[in-house]
């Protein structure tokens, strides 16, 4: 087991204080970065192969490179700490253990993209964490790591903590920007992407807490060192927030490419009470579910994608043999139906509709057509049918649950006692126009 990087201060006394951080060699990377050329910093990050840790896995250096150099507008850096997907709690751990690591990463990122104002958009429920950040920012200002003329290099940076109001949609970067601007948190149409026109219409980079926390390590030890950890395409270490049926749930830091078996069995102590693993969700609740047979998949972006899921945010949800998959899907959809912002029709109506169907199935009132309807909802509410990826976020679980555990669902609907429903046609039925596929023939 390798020594943790991001969580290196976990278990230390006063791990959040600046003194402890300096004892670990803190703010050394900033000293190094601020005398480099900003372009070299971006080059270094590109060379390290660091990919965004928020879910999409976009290479961070590439994202920074999109910021227009001479737009004449101020640039902004936003740290996305609105971690609200069920099963994901890794960013909270970084803030709790080592907030200065995040601040140092932010200084480096802001220097690289030439931003002088940075925001930490933190989830509203993280009240104590917001206080911890405020405290750390105060310490950094006093020691001149923030503010005007940082470490006498002439670089200015102010960091503000902005608390969200409890909407998961605000972890989507454009909704987050809307929220900071003081409007209702709803994703914007893209393009323009935030790197071109984001916060207040200015070029903006939104990075995840974990991504930013990797930066000091890369600058301190070099891109090659970082690239040597993990696999070819997925470099570095990754935090996995493991929850569910394991002996010791929690946040674990492992190099990318470690198999899920290692994470679940070695790090977390396996499934309790001698039960068998049934399924696991590798990357937060929006990632498609994987079965026990796929436990030897390496936890890196490409291998997980090949297995039919996504690494996402690294929220590993483990389910043992006692779990009812219909209940799990209902549970997940309850979250997505509640968190849909209500903007796009397919997501707004689809999530609530799918939830209604699952509730009915769970009440033993399902009918076999329900599964077709679920498939149809999942087909038509994702992959570009909505503005933001929340449409996919609720469709992928539906699709993967029906795919991998369809038997359980079929059993639930056939044993059901469906309500007597008289289907009335929307409009006078036009039998002559058979231009649409009849119910049931949709791809599933």
């Amino acid at each position: 087991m390798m020594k943790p990087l991001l969580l290196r201060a976990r278990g230390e006394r006063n791990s959040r204080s600046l003194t402890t951080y300096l004892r670990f060699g803190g703010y050394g990377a900033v000293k190094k970065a601020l005398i480099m050329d900003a372009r070299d910093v971006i080059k270094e990050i590109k060379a390290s192969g660091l990919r965004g840790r928020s879910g999409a896995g976009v290479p961070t250096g590439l994202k920074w490179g999109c910021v227009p150099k001479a737009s004449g507008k101020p640039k902004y850096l936003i740290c996305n700490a609105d971690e609200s997907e069920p099963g994901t709690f890794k960013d909270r751990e970084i803030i709790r253990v080592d907030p200065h690591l995040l601040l140092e990463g932010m200084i480096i990122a802001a220097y690289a993209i030439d931003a002088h104002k940075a925001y930490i958009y933190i989830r509203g429920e993280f009240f104590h964490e917001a206080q911890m950040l405020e405290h750390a920012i105060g310490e950094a200002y006093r020691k001149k790591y923030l503010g005007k003329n940082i470490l006498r290099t002439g670089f200015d940076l102010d960091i503000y903590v902005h608390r969200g109001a409890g909407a998961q949609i605000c972890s989507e970067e454009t909704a987050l920007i809307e929220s900071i601007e003081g409007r209702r948190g709803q994703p914007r149409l893209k393009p323009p992407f935030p790197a071109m026109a984001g916060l207040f219409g200015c070029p903006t980079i939104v990075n995840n807490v974990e991504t930013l926390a990797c930066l000091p390590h890369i600058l301190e030890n070099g891109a090659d060192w970082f690239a040597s950890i993990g696999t070819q395409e997925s470099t570095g270490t990754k935090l996995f927030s493991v929850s569910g049926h394991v002996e010791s749930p929690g946040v674990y830091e492992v190099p990318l490419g470690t198999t899920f078996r290692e994470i679940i069995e070695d790090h977390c102590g396996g499934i309790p009470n001698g039960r068998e693993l049934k399924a696991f969700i590798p990357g937060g609740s929006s990632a498609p579910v994987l079965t026990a047979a796929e436990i030897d998949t390496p936890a890196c972006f490409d291998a997980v994608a090949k297995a039919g899921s996504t690494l996402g945010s690294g929220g590993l949800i483990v389910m043992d043999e006692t779990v009812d998959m219909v209940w799990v899907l209902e549970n997940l959809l309850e979250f997505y139906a509640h968190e849909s912002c209500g903007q796009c029709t397919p997501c707004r109506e689809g999530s609530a509709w799918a939830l209604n169907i699952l509730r009915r199935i769970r009440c033993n009132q399902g009918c076999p057509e329900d599964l077709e309807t679920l498939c149809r909802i999942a087909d038509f509410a994702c992959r570009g049918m909505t503005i933001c990826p929340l449409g996919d976020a609720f469709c992928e679980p539906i699709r993967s649950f029906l795919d991998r555990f369809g038997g359980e669902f079929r059993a639930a609907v056939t044993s059901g006692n469906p309500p007597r429903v008289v289907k009335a046609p929307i409009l006078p039925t036009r039998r002559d126009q058979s231009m649409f596929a009849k119910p049931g023939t949709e791809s599933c």
Partner: protein
Amino acid sequence: MLRLTIDGVEVQVAEGTNLVEASKKAGIEIPTTCYHPGLRVVGQCRICFVEVESMPHLVTACSTPAQNGMIVMTKSPRVRNARAAVLEFLLANHPLDCPVCDQAGECSLQDFSMEIGLDESRMIDEKRTFPGFESRQIGPAVVQNQNRCIRCSRCIRFTQEIFETHDLIMKGRGARAYIDTFDGRPFDNPWSACVADVCPVGALTVKDFRFRARVWHLMETPSICPGCSVGCNIDVGHLDGVVHRFKPRTNPEINGWWMCDHGRSLASDLNNRDLDRPAVRSGSTFSTLTWNEALVILAETIVTKKPRIVASANLSNEALFLIRRLFVEHLDLEVVVPTDSGAQRWIKNERGTRIESIEVQPNGTGARLIGLSMVDEKGLRDFVSQSSVILLDNRAHAWLAGPDAAAELRGRLAAVFGRRHTELSRTADLIFPTASWFETEGSFTSSTGRVQLARPGWSPVRLGRPAWRTLTDLAVRLDLPLENCISPRRVFEEIVQEIPAFAGMTYRRLSSEPGIPILKDIPHVG
């Protein structure tokens, strides 16, 4: 200019045009519910999907700018399936109460489900409802039914972007999101009923029009709003001789897509008439006459008493021109047109330019151009303070409707024209019923300097007569025939010849163009 191909049709569009507008140019309609040409593009209803070659996903036509060489397919099976699915989502919780919905007949959702929707819904669960929001009066002019709402946010964007009152907001989230007024205040702004126009479904309806008529029965006559000098373009909806509503008609130069609530409220006024035949005073009562008899008496009065004439800026250019010709040029009488600046009203045109009214009467600008002298309230009171007076419109000025005017003019009012009795008309010696502006053809000059044509919806009811006809008839009785003035069209031809500001205009041009600007460099006559 960009060239692109839409369903095999090649079109040329300007840079920055979106695919909805580009398709319109190609003669292809793309269904839209959240897109409105006057509002910001949000792309959230997702019904305007089109397939673009070389793009992996379907794209929303409203938010995709046209590009050179783009190949767009709007009717491919993939597009039709996606649109049908979006419609199914939209209809899943829609109450489908079309039989009792006022929007039925002009409802986007209804049109699209006929066109592209599925026959049956898979939705077998109970529909989502918003108890207490079925017919909720959110302001003096608008009634909300949240159950029908499809959350296109047009109404919200309208209040935010066009008149910037920010009255409406979206509350709640996801499927429970609903439209409400900001802070729970009444939705009371001068253009509030426009949200019912932009609403693609029956979620927001105009209170005055609720349950009045089915829209497919309504006749719609393009006309001009008489509410102020701006001259917003309207469609008058009427059925069996009853006017039911005014609806804004798009005019990019004057009112864009909008009109104010004051203008809309004038619709019911057209249905009110209690003067239906000419009458002459005998003692304290009136006895009715035929038009012929009444005109003979009027001609006598004019010859013997040489009365002063109060014209009206509510009259059309044609009527005002005949007034000038007959009373000023032939008879050499004194004529004034009273105007009243009244409450300031404004509207925004298609480019978002603010257009303000200068008077409450619709044709003050026309009267000035024709060369009649204008007076305000004080001038009017001085003008009518002596000698006998003929009033060509008893609602020419607010003062004339008040009790002061009746007391002032008692015994000196030779004749009055109008549609309804006022206190003043009961003191007149002769009363003439007039046709309303909606019963006669005529052009009006907006204070923006545009001449616009108002078409008649029907011919005058009862014995009301339009002003131009009364004047030509009167001229015959006075042996001063007005040559060529046998219809508003012919009168307008005379105007065009005689008044340089109107040069080059014809009725044909007026009815096909969004108003013709007057020639500005020519000094006003008179």
